[in-house]
Structures are given as structure tokens and as C-alpha cells.
């Protein structure tokens, strides 16, 4: 078993790369526990903008309006001077200046259209919010005046209607608002370290073994290539399984033993193991396709990040566009994440959910078989060229 044992000697030289990947992943997993899921972060809150209101009417109506805007936003008192306006806007001391023109109240009472003059800071996109708000206030206010209320009453009514909140539910998908356990996020991020570590362990060592001169020397020896490949494959599989076991131990350290009682722990293992086979096939392909450490670095970074971003590992599937999702279905990571989501939202898998999980796992295995097939074709072509 000289090839097998030497594999582990070579692996030892790459130990720091593996440790770094594990540490980075553990860091990400810990952060994920603290901050919750990416979906939890989808919420809204009011913001207050720095505005200025210049009252040139000095009427009861204009004062009511100014006071109300002051309640909604952070008002800054400015001198009524165009030069001052320009400076304050330029230095972003205020984002928008609203000017209530003289004759504002009189005009409104007469049923005339008296628009407010607005000055905005350059590139201040946030002022859209205040502009919409002021526009709404003015529409309600004019409506109440037209109904015969005096300015003070009209403003009170306007405030009431502006403060009423509508209940809005954002339905992202059927399951997105259901709560998944914390360790589900660990399993969701798992594809990234799995690919990164397996590439460090398998691809980097495969290119050493497949280096032309070293391979020639092995071919010259009385050691059959079949035996060499068998020992090499055995070593690769052993390493992959060890890494999987390590990655399966970590969630116990981070989250405790809750998941053992979840009722679906076995499915987490099954899903992660099927993605291990996918990662193994990818690492193998990268290993025989590349001819230098630099090339492996480029391939592994682009493949792992590409699979993770487009497959829904880093970005939830629920926020992806239909076009991206359509493309994602051609990636094994999509099926891993989708299966993981289903597992995470159940305490017992039965019926269609169970079918979907098995379907997801089988598709991942199909991807692995296809990638292995491509690797074998490349290996055969390389041998023929030799």
C-alpha cells in the first residue's frame, strides 16, 4: 500500500490549508447562529431624514404642516437665503429643503393648487421617501379642507390617516416564513467547506501524482497502473469520509445534541453525504483537469463560489429571480440546498416532502455520476495522447 500511505504523507503537507478552511467555516457557522438566517434579516423600519422647511407664509396652516413634517423627520432651521440652501445641500447637512410659499394657506382655502418648492441634495436618493410623504400629506390635507374642515382640523385628520398602518405580509414562498432550526443553517453552508477542503486534499495531491515525470517513473515500475489507481482512489475516499465525519461532529460542538432529537437527523446525514460524493467528484475532476496549483486555485474558487452563490448556499433560494432559479436547477448545490430546506422545516418526513428529499438526493448522485463520467473520459484521452 505504498501509494496509499504516501498519499497521507503528502496530505500532511497540506494540513494548514485544511485547517484554515475548517476554521473559516466554523467562523461563518458561528456568525450564522448569532445572526439567524438570511431570511430573518428581511424586515423594514422607518427612517428619519435631515430636512429643512422654510415657511414664507407664516400662516396657521403652514405652521401645522411644518410641525407635522418635524414629527416625521429631523428638521434643521435654516436662514431663508439661496446661498445657505446651496451650501447646506452640498455638504449634505440636509437632504431636502421644502419651501412653503407665501399665500399658501389663502390659496388652499380658495381651492387653488399651491405646490411646495423643493430643493434636493445632489445624488440623495433617500429624498424620494420624504417627497412621497409630503405629497401624501398635501393630498389628504387638501381633501379635508375641501370637505369644509378648518386647517387645524384638517391637519389633525391628516395625521390620523397618515399614522394608520396597513398590515403587509410578504409571501416569499410556501415555506419561507416557517422557522428552521439553527443547525439547518450549518448544513446549508456545508457545501462551501466541503468543496474547498476536498479540493485541498484531493485535487492538490492528484496533480502531484499525475505530474508527467512522476507518472512516467511509476509507469516504468513493476507496479500496475490499476493498482496505483485503486490505492489512490482508496486514499481519496478515506480522506473524504474522514472530512465528512469531522464536519458532522462540528454541529454538536456549536449547537449541542438537539438535532439528534429532531426526527430528521438521518436525512441531514444522508443529504450531506450525497453532497460529499458530489464534492468528491468535483475535486477529482479538478485534480485531473488541472496541471498546476495555480490552476487548481482558480478552478476551486470559481467552482465553489459559483455553486454556492448560484445554488442557494449563500443567497436564499427564496430571493432569487425565476431566471436564476431556472439556471440553478442545473447545479448540484441547488438540489442540496432545496433538500436541506425541506428537511429543516419538518420534524418528520412523510408524503411529498419525503419524496422531494429522496428526489433531491438522487439528483445529486446523478450529478456525481455525470462528473465522474467526464473525469474518466478526460483520463482516457490523456492516456491515449501519452
Amino acid at each position: 500500500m505504498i501509494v496509499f500511505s504516501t498519499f497521507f504523507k503528502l496530505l500532511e503537507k497540506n494540513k494548514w490549508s485544511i485547517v484554515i478552511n475548517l476554521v473559516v467555516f466554523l467562523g461563518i457557522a458561528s456568525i450564522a447562529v448569532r445572526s439567524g438566517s438570511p431570511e430573518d434579516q428581511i424586515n423594514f423600519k422607518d427612517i428619519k431624514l435631515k430636512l429643512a422647511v422654510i415657511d414664507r407664509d407664516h400662516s396657521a396652516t403652514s405652521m401645522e404642516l411644518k410641525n407635522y413634517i418635524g414629527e416625521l423627520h429631523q428638521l434643521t432651521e435654516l436662514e431663508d437665503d439661496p446661498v445657505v440652501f446651496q451650501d447646506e445641500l452640498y455638504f449634505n447637512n440636509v437632504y431636502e429643503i421644502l419651501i412653503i410659499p407665501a399665500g399658501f394657506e389663502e390659496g388652499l382655502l380658495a381651492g387653488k393648487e399651491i405646490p411646495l418648492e423643493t430643493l434636493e441634495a445632489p445624488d440623495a436618493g433617500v429624498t424620494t421617501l420624504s417627497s412621497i410623504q409630503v405629497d401624501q400629506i398635501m393630498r389628504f390635507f387638501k381633501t379635508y379642507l375641501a370637505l369644509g374642515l378648518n386647517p387645524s382640523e384638517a391637519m389633525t385628520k391628516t395625521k390620523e390617516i397618515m399614522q394608520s398602518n396597513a398590515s403587509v405580509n410578504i409571501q416569499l414562498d410556501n415555506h419561507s416564513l416557517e422557522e428552521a432550526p439553527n443547525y439547518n443553517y450549518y448544513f446549508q453552508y456545508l457545501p462551501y467547506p466541503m468543496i474547498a477542503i476536498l479540493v485541498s486534499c484531493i485535487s492538490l495531491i492528484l496533480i502531484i501524482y499525475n505530474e508527467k515525470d512522476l507518472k512516467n517513473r511509476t509507469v516504468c515500475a513493476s507496479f500496475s497502473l490499476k493498482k496505483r489507481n485503486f490505492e489512490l482512489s482508496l486514499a481519496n475516499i478515506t480522506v473524504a469520509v474522514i472530512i465528512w465525519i469531522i464536519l458532522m461532529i462540528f454541529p454538536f460542538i456549536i449547537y449541542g445534541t438537539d438535532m439528534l432529537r429532531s426526527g430528521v437527523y438521518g436525512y441531514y446525514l444522508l443529504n450531506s453525504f450525497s453532497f460529499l460524493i458530489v464534492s468528491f467528484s468535483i475535486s477529482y475532476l479538478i485534480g485531473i483537469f488541472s496541471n498546476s496549483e495555480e490552476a487548481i486555485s482558480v478552478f476551486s474558487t470559481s467552482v465553489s463560489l459559483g455553486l454556492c452563490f448560484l445554488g442557494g448556499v449563500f443567497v436564499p433560494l427564496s430571493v432569487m429571480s425565476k431566471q436564476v432559479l431556472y439556471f440553478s436547477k442545473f447545479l448540484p448545490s441547488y438540489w442540496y440546498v432545496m433538500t436541506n430546506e425541506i428537511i429543516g422545516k419538518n420534524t418528520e418526513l412523510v408524503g411529498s416532502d419525503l419524496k422531494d428529499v429522496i428526489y433531491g438526493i438522487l439528483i445529486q448522485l446523478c450529478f456525481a455520476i455525470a462528473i465522474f463520467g467526464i473525469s474518466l473520459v478526460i483520463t482516457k484521452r490523456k492516456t491515449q495522447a501519452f
Partner: protein
Amino acid sequence: MIVKVENLVKRYKDLLALDHLNLSIEKGEIFGLLGPNGSGKSTAIGCILALLNFDKGNIEVFGKPMRPDSYDLKRKIGVVLQNVAVFNELTVYDNIDYFCGLYVKDKEERKKLVMEAIEFVGLEDFKKFYPKKLSGGLLRRLNIACGIAHKPELIILDEPTVAVDPQSRNRILEGIVDLNKKGATIIYTSHYMEEVEQICSRVAIIDKGKTIAIGTKEQLKAMIKTSETICIEVLELEEKHLENIKELPHVYKVDYDNQRLLISCTGGKHNLIRVLNYLQSKEVAFGRVYTELPTLNDVFLEITGKELRD
């Protein structure tokens, strides 16, 4: 017969790398394969080792056809290829142990063989060194140790001294002779004729994939016209003297360049005395005088019309 190559033809697309090459190597020989870069030496070795497919011909090693799966034959062969082929991630000891392990299963036996190989190439002080820490010469020695640790009967060395300092080169050449004395048959390829002359008992000169001459060094040198070259440092020499010297017995070629008179003689006795007598009689002043016996380069030059290192 240890190795027999008959009418070997190997093509790389349109390039004819080996053109009906014939070789026969006897047991106990140090057989030199001499030729300029690109002459087909490494391709021939690749075919003998079944590393490369060939288009036509026949190769037998130890009396059996050599195929990629001839593991019984490969067990008896040690290979030191042109490029250093070792694991940069393994120590000197682990490298030799790995390559020896491809032939020898038993750990204890292997340990003994590895230590012997280390001792043989003189790397005792570098056992735990990684290849990147070794000098070019030491790295070549490691390369050799990896190829010979399993004590093969036939050792094929393909340009093992390329880019090696003179001290390491001598050590390597002495080692090869030593291996031969211990019973190994050696095939040694090189484009350094001095090395081939120094250690090889029989030599095949190849050019453009063809064997152009084969035999012992003496046999090869006997094949050419030149048997002696006389070199004399002369400050000034008139054209008429050159003509007269050329008329002397056994002289067939005279050159005068850079105050150096070169006289090629075909054989016979007293050539040097005759030339010196002539110069003295014509009162031509001369300095250092020496003679050179023909080299394999002269053989190559005379047969192909070009230098080995052209």
C-alpha cells in the same frame, strides 16, 4: 542479449523521430547512446520502457517482448529519466522509499535497500532534507537513488548529468561504473561525448533517429580517416608552408587559424617529427606543440558533417 531493438520506427505526426533504429545490448555492458539533442535518444528509451507507443519494429528486453504490462520485466529495470522526477513534498528518504516501494513490498527489505541507495549516492547527511533544499547535483543523485534502490539488473540512465557541477558529475559517473561492476547492465544516453568516452564500453551514435555507427570506442574511431591531430602554435605562417605541409606523408588536412596550426593525419609513424623538422628547416618559429587522438565528436563530425553540439 539484454535489450534488442529491431527496425524501430516512431513518428510524432509528421516528424520521424526514430527511423528504423537497431540496437543490441549485451549483459554487463555500459552501453552509450550518443547523439545531439533531438536525435531520438530519449524517444528510443521511451519506447524500450514501453512509455511510448511505436509505429513499427520490435523491442525485446531480457529476451521477451516489452509491453506496458510486462511487470516481470519491469521489476528488473531501473530508470533514471532526463528530468528529475521526485516528490517535492517528501524527504529524501521518503522519496527513495516510495519509488523502491513500487518494486519491493517487504518493509524491512525496503528499509535496507533505501539505506544502501542513500549511501551509494552519498546522501547520508541529507536524508531528512526536502528536494527543494538540495543543490542541482544532490538532486540528480537523489534522482538516481530513486531509480536504482531496488537493485535492478538493467539500469537506463537518460542524460543523468544535465546541469550538474563537475564534482557531482564525476561522482555520478563513478557510481555508474560501480553499479556496472556489481553486475548491472547500463544504458547511458548523453550528448556529452566525454562522459560516454569515459564510462561506456560500447557506443551507438544516433542522428535523426538512425543509428549511424555502433561499436566499441576504438572500433568507432577506426572508422574515420583521422587517427591523430597535431596542434602547433605558430605566430606567422605563409601560405606556401601550408601547401608543403599538406604534401608530407599521412597528412590529409591542414588548417591555420588564430596562430594555431592543425594538421590531421591518417595514421603512420613519426608524423609529428616530420612536421617539426619541416618547420625548423624553414626557420618557422613555433611555440606549444601537442597531439590529440580522435574523439567521438570527430567520429560524429566526419560521418554527419556537423559537431555533436551543433
